[in-house]
């Protein structure tokens, strides 16, 4: 097990390196450099330009140096906790990010739990009642969730939540709790607001999950041992829960790898519509104003988050299913 864990951790390093190279390429794509447009913008607004600050930033981020050199500077900076400087906020990136990243993680985890809670019973029902009306109906609803653009669903749910329950629009908590220390009431308010993004982001993942759980369980249910168990008079539920369900559980954990990038993608989109205080809105505005260090760091954070999530799911899986850890070392 330990060997597998170490092996799996080591694989993360080249993965993150490639991702960082990709992100850096994206940061570099727009023509001109940030300081030029930054200075131009300041001058156009009639503000004075702090030559010293500009010179300092130019020095700090090595503008004018070849791209490769800047890439390594950016990389080593990140390793030391310096994620660059946001020109829009005039703050170090790490301060802008703050607990937005935490809220992104919160929303993502809640979404995954929601997806499981919904997909699990429906998947089992669909597999045990194959080709019934219930199976068709639930599959269709799942597909509908997949086909509806997240952002629009968010908008509509938000409207109805406001009309029916009087939930305040936008954000993850009622306005009076903003900038307040965490308290029970604040947490409750967050819960009250959290369900909409969670439901909205969850719908798209749920359909895929239901379908694969159904397919998996159907395969398992047709195997000899289930037939034998039934023939020997095992009650229906026991014949379902004891082994077939267990083995399709593995796949649930394994699917985090597929689910997580989708959840984070969805979270970003929905966050913009609902103006959630997560990373989404800032990422968009950073991209629109070409505040590329901020955007790049966000992309890097999100990717790292995903990679770590996948790592956790792999480790869980290896713990659940010894076959994987035996074969994993050589093939992965």
């Amino acid at each position: 097990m330990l060997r597998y864990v170490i092996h799996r951790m080591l694989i993360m390093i080249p993965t993150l390196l490639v991702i960082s190279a990709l992100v850096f390429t994206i940061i570099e794509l727009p023509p001109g450099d940030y300081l030029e447009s930054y200075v131009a913008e300041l001058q156009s607004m009639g503000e004075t330009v702090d030559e010293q600050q500009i010179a300092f930033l130019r020095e700090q981020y090595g503008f004018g140096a070849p791209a490769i050199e800047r890439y390594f500077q950016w990389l080593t900076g990140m390793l030391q906790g310096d994620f660059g400087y946001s020109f829009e906020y005039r703050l170090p990136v790490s301060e802008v990010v703050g607990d937005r990243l935490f809220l992104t993680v919160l929303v993502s985890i809640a979404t995954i739990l929601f997806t499981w809670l919904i997909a699990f019973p429906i998947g089992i029902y669909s597999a045990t009642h194959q080709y019934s009306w219930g199976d068709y109906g639930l599959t269709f609803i799942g597909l509908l969730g997949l086909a509806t653009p997240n952002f629009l669903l968010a908008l509509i749910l938000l409207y109805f939540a406001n009309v029916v329950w009087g939930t305040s629009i936008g954000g993850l908590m009622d306005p009076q709790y903003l900038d307040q220390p965490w308290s029970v009431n604040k947490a409750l308010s967050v819960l009250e607001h959290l369900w909409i993004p969670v439901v909205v982001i969850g719908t798209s993942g749920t359909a895929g999950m239901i379908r694969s759980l159904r397919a998996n369980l159907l395969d398992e249910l047709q195997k000899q041992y289930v037939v034998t168990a039934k023939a020997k008079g095992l009650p229906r539920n026991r014949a379902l829960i004891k082994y077939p369900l267990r083995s399709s559980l593995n796949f649930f954990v394994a699917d985090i790898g597929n689910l997580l990038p989708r959840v984070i993608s969805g979270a970003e989109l929905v966050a913009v519509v609902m103006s959630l205080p997560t990373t989404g809105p800032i990422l968009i505005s950073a991209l629109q104003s070409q505040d590329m260090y901020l955007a790049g760091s966000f992309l890097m954070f999100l990717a790292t988050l995903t990679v770590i999530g996948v790592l956790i799911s792999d480790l869980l899986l290896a713990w659940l299913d010894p076959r994987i850890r035996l074969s994993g070392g050589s093939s992965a």
Partner: protein
Amino acid sequence: MSGTDKIRQAGNDRLEHFVSDEPFDRNPLGAPLTPEQEKFYLASQWKLMWWKFTRHRLAVISGLFLLLTYLAILIAEFLAPYELHSRHPDFIYVPPQQVRMIHDGSFIGPFVYGTHYRLNMENLQRIYTEDTSQIYRIRFFCRSDPYKFWGAMESDLHLFCVEDGGTLFLLGTDRLGRDVLSRIIYGARISLSIGLIGTMLSFSLALVIGGIAGYFGGIVDLLIQRLIEILQSFPQIPLWMALAAVLPVTWSPLLIYFGITVILAMFDWTGLARAVRSKLLSLREEEYCLAAQLMGAKPQRIIGRHLLPGFMSHLVASATLSVPAIILGETALSFLGLGLRAPVTSWGVLLNEAQNISVVALYPWLILPVVPVILVILAFNFLGDGIRDAADPYA
């Protein structure tokens, strides 16, 4: 000695590829077959696939629906009652008008009532009411709003329009008084073509990259596998957003259109490439491949004649299932204002108008462009399901 001679000489070592001229005897044992059996056993692979496909009712209906929509985008100008950009300054945010048949108990065919406009002076809300004293008949194959067919041929023939003096806003109008229905019909052209072109791009990328991985194997395969894993572990939408934001503002709308298509395709090929690779690897080991090799067939012939038909149907199914992702991606990007820009009109650009909650509350018809999005995505999913089930007719 030229290059081709060298190859020819090297090729002399191998056997001449043998192809029998005799017609293929499909029933060598000569056992008598019933007509139905004969029909079934002698059917070609494609025929079997077609039969199996038609058994999936939903897939057939979806296929027909998609065929019709794609045909419709060819003649969008003719189908839409108004031109894409024609504004009606006196009719801003008009709710959908209802088509009626009967007026005052007498049947007069399809018509709409006139609209009466009043400004609520308290909250400055525009209020439109039906004016039942005015009747405007709906006509078919009539001349009204002039347009340029595909930007080239001038015409003013429409499938249906309303009598002079009346308005026909079946799905209401937007903030500039433009007909939402017409804009949805025009938007289909962009949204659907992006789905198709994007998928074609990602399909070719997948064929080449997956093919290289599957054909060469070894270290190349390993590297490509890792690259695919990395790309798949990256949250797609933020990546799309970042790349879309990088497109220069100075580009023409057409260039932006292609840029967005390329961006969408660039991260969509991974799943398909995996399918190509694994299919190539598994089919390579089949006996008929070995047989072809022993009979002296060259790699091109083995790949083109024996391998490709074997997995093309699977690939088409996967490609069909990946169209929705591209259409949704475009919609999301345009909705956020990072994708296509006016005057290019796609469903996402239309939904961009419905970005805040007051629209849902006051002008709910502006979110109607989502209906075709949902329908098309569902249809592609069902169609893909049907093709996937039919892909292996011998199973």
